[in-house]
Structure formats: C-alpha cells, structure tokens
C-alpha cells in the first residue's frame, strides 16, 4: 500500500515538473513569436539572400551539419549520424524499396516503413521529430501501442479457426514454435554476457519476440519494453516474415525423412458455426483466468474474430478486414519508419538484432517440426511434421510453405488446411508468450 502511494506521489511529481517545464517552454515560444512579429520582414541584399538560402540546403546540412542539431529524443547526435549516416540510411531505405517491389517482401508494410525511414533521415526538416508528422504519428498510435492492437483486430477478423477446431491437438505445434522466442532470449542474454553487446533483459525479450513471427506482437512488445530498438526489431520481424519461404524449407527438410514428408493426414471434419462462435470467447476467458497481461492482444484478436463469426455485423467485419486495417497499416508503417533515423538505426545493436532475429525464426521452425515428430510417437492419427513449421504464426505464409514443401514430395498431398491449425495456434501462442514477458517486467 505504502509502495503504491509512493509511486503515485512520484508520478504526480513527475507530471508537475513536466507541466512546469512545458509552461516555460510555451512562454519562451510566445516570446519568440512576438519578437518575430515586431521584426517583420527586413529587406536584405540579394547576394545575402542567396547565401542564406544556400546555407539552408540539404547538401550543406549533410556535409557540414549543424552542431546544435538534436535528434527526435532531444539528445545531441554525433557528426556521423548527422551526415554520412543519413546518406547510408537513405540507401538502406532504397534497398528496402527494392526488396518490397522487386522481390515482393511484405510490401504492404515494408514500403510504408521504408518510406518513413527515408523521410526520417532528411536533415533540417525534422519530420521524425516531436512536431514533424512522423513524430506525431508515432506519438499518436505507436508509443501507446494503439496501432498494433487495431491491426490485431483486423487480423482476428481475417482468421478462420475452423482448421484448429477440427484438429485441436495441432495447437501444440503452435506452442512448440514459441521456443524460438525463449531460446533466442537466452541467446541474447548470453551474447551480452559474453560482452559483445549490452542488452538488458528487457531489450533481449523485445528482440526475441521476433521469433513469434508476428509483426503486431513484435511492435507491441518492442514499444513496451525497448522503444529505442523498435525500428530494427520491426524491420527484422517483417523482412524475415517475408523470407519465410526461403528460411523454412531447408530446416524442414533437414529434420524430416522422406516418408514423414509423405504422411497423409485424415480429412478435417466439418466445424459448426456455433463452435466457431464460442471459440473466441473460450480463448478470451482462458486468457482472463491465466494471464490477464495477454488480454490486450488476445482480446483485440478475439473481438475481430467474434465479429466475423457472429455473422450479423457484416459491415463492421468488412471495415475491420479492409478499410481500418489498411489505414492503420499506413500509419503503423510510417510510425515505425520514423525509428529508422540514422542515430537510432546505425548502431551495432541493429546487426545483432538482425542475427538474433533469424536465429529466432530458425529455432522456432525447428521446434515446431520436432514437436510434430514427438507427437507421432504417441498413438493416434499421424501428423505430417511439415505442418509443424507453420507453428511460427506468420499467417498464412508459413502454412503455404508447409503445403508447398509437402506437394514437392507428393503432388496429391494437400497440407494447407492442416497447416492452418498450428498457424493460428501460433498467433495465440505468441500472444501468450508476449503476455508472459510483459508480466515478468511488471
């Protein structure tokens, strides 16, 4: 009780200091504005005007940066991050454009992120700063974890739990794949233990959630636990998700025998409408009882799904699946892109995040496949281990990969619907894992 009171007091003090500071700031701004008005416009010789204009160009700002320039957080930046670093980042965003357009890597998110990154690295304009429009977007919906939640509603409205309901035990595969998260967490702390990087436990957790292969969840956790790493985590998460068809098949093939890959699964039974309608409520109830920390994500997800399955609010369902998720995707992408500013992205941490991210994906894939093999040791219907890899969320890409690899060995073996079970279970699994991580840091 005492501790709570103390915390409240501290919070109150913090706010009062903040507001005092803001008042001072406003006063200064007002003063500035008034002097500005009195000055009005003064006529200058043309040569001076040209000189002044030339000094305000981007070239000058890049080559000879303003020593007092502050970054989005109001801290001083090194000369590298103001000059060459920005040029490098602009080329990095070009690389992302190429990946999105020519290679088709998750263009829906990668393009807004990359363009946001391009805008965030413009000198002088300060678009990603407190009052720039990217900064405003970031503060509007990312720093308070609003956008990922809305995206989750849309994803819920697009998800069909039918395959999972008709073969419930495949949910275990979606659980096993979450090993990618926690395995990488250990890897990340081991790296910082060995002295390569300096990740705190919070940062390590935020990085490891990339293994959940779930964009909104990664962003949700990153903004909560390590906002300074958001840019790198989101870019790693989405680019690896797009690379699922490249990353997963070698791992799946290495861990299975040819006979296992040819296993045919029994046809899925029909799932009644009532079952689908009760399911979201069931999951939410369980989340409320076991892990309330995960209910923002699961609640939003199940809300979207419930609207869809209810069948009586087609208009809302349609908006969630299309208009709303599209609008929010634009904002989410641009907001994340604002974190691609050179001073936040061009740091050694980013490289480690990229490496740890791909490790997380691979470990998750392997764990899912191995879990399927383990389940085949028990009596019951056999499971094709290829669907285990779909446990790493990444809906529906991972399920398509399972289907494709399965067809390579037996043209008539359709695994897509079977793989959707672990796939959607993976989304629930990573939301639960996210809830555990959040609850551990409370």
């Amino acid at each position, binding site marked *: 009780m005492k501790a709570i009171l103390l915390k409240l007091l501290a919070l109150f003090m913090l706010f009062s200091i903040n507001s005092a500071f803001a008042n001072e700031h406003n006063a200064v701004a007002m003063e500035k504005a008034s002097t500005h008005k009195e000055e009005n416009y003064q006529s200058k010789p043309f040569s001076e005007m040209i000189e002044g204009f030339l000094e305000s160009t981007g070239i000058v700002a890049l080559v000879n940066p303003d020593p007092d320039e502050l970054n989005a957080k109001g801290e001083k930046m090194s000369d590298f991050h103001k000059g060459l670093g920005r040029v490098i980042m602009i080329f990095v965003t070009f690389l992302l454009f190429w990946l999105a357009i020519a290679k088709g890597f998750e263009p829906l998110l990668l393009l807004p992120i990359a363009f946001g990154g391009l805008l965030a690295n413009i000198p002088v304009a300060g678009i990603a700063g407190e009052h720039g429009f990217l900064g405003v977007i970031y503060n509007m919906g990312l720093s308070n974890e609003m956008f990922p939640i809305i995206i989750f509603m849309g994803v819920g409205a697009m998800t069909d739990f039918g395959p999972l309901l008709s073969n419930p035990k495949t949910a275990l595969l979606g659980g096993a794949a*979450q090993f990618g998260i926690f395995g990488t967490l250990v890897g990340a702390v*081991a790296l910082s233990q060995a002295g390569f990087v300096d990740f705190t436990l919070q940062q390590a957790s935020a990085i490891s959630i990339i293994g959940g292969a779930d964009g909104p969840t990664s962003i949700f956790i990153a903004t909560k636990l390590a906002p300074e790493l958001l840019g790198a985590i989101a870019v790693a998460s989405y680019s690896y998700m797009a690379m699922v068809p490249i990353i997963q098949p070698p791992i799946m093939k290495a861990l299975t025998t040819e006979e296992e890959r040819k296993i045919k699964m029994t046809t899925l039974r029909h799932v*009644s409408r009532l079952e689908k309608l009760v399911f979201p409520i069931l999951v939410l109830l369980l989340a409320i009882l076991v892990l309330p920390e995960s209910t923002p994500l699961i609640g939003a997800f199940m809300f979207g799904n419930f609207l869809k399955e209810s069948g009586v609010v087609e208009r809302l369902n349609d908006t969630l699946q299309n208009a709303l998720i599209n609008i929010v995707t634009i904002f989410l992408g641009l907001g994340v892109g604002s974190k691609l500013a050179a001073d936040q992205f061009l740091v050694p941490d980013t490289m480690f995040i990229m490496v740890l991210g791909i490790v997380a994906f691979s470990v998750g894939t392997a764990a899912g496949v191995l879990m399927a093999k383990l389940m085949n040791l028990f009596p019951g219907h056999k499971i094709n281990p290829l669907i285990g890899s779909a446990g790493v969320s990444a809906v529906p890409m991972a399920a398509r990969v399972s289907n494709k690899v399965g067809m390579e060995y037996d043209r008539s073996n359709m695994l897509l619907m079977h793989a959707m079970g672990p796939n959607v279970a993976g989304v629930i699994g990573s939301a639960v894992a996210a809830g555990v991580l959040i609850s551990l840091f409370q």
Partner: protein
Amino acid sequence: METNLILEGFKFMVLGMGTVFMFLIVLIFMMNMMSKIVHKYFPEPQVDINPPVANKQDNKKVIAAITAAIAHHRQS
C-alpha cells in the same frame, strides 16, 4: 551478478514455455469439450438431407413433364 543474466534467461524460458503449453493444453481440452457439448445439445440443422428430397420431387415433376411432352409429340 554476471552469471545471473543467463540464469534469468533460462528462468524466463521455463516459465514462458510452461505457460504457453499449459495455456494451449487447457485450450485443447476446452475445445474438445466444447465441440462435444455443441454436437450433443446444439446439433446443426441437417441441411444436407432436405434438398435431395425436394430434388426428388422436382425430378418427378420434370420426368412427368417430359413424359407428357414426349407423349404429346408422338400423338401429334
């Protein structure tokens, strides 16, 4: 202090994977139970049986019409 961090990581892993699996296992039980209850007490109306009956009747009518038409054709 130094060794603490990795140990913490392992603690997170055990707790995290434990929770995820427990959640999903309970969910599997609940799903199975829910399906049984739904199938037992709220079976879906069997839509598949009715249409064929209607079809049979329709077929009879059609057959009758065709027969009549053929008969009519032969007569004329």
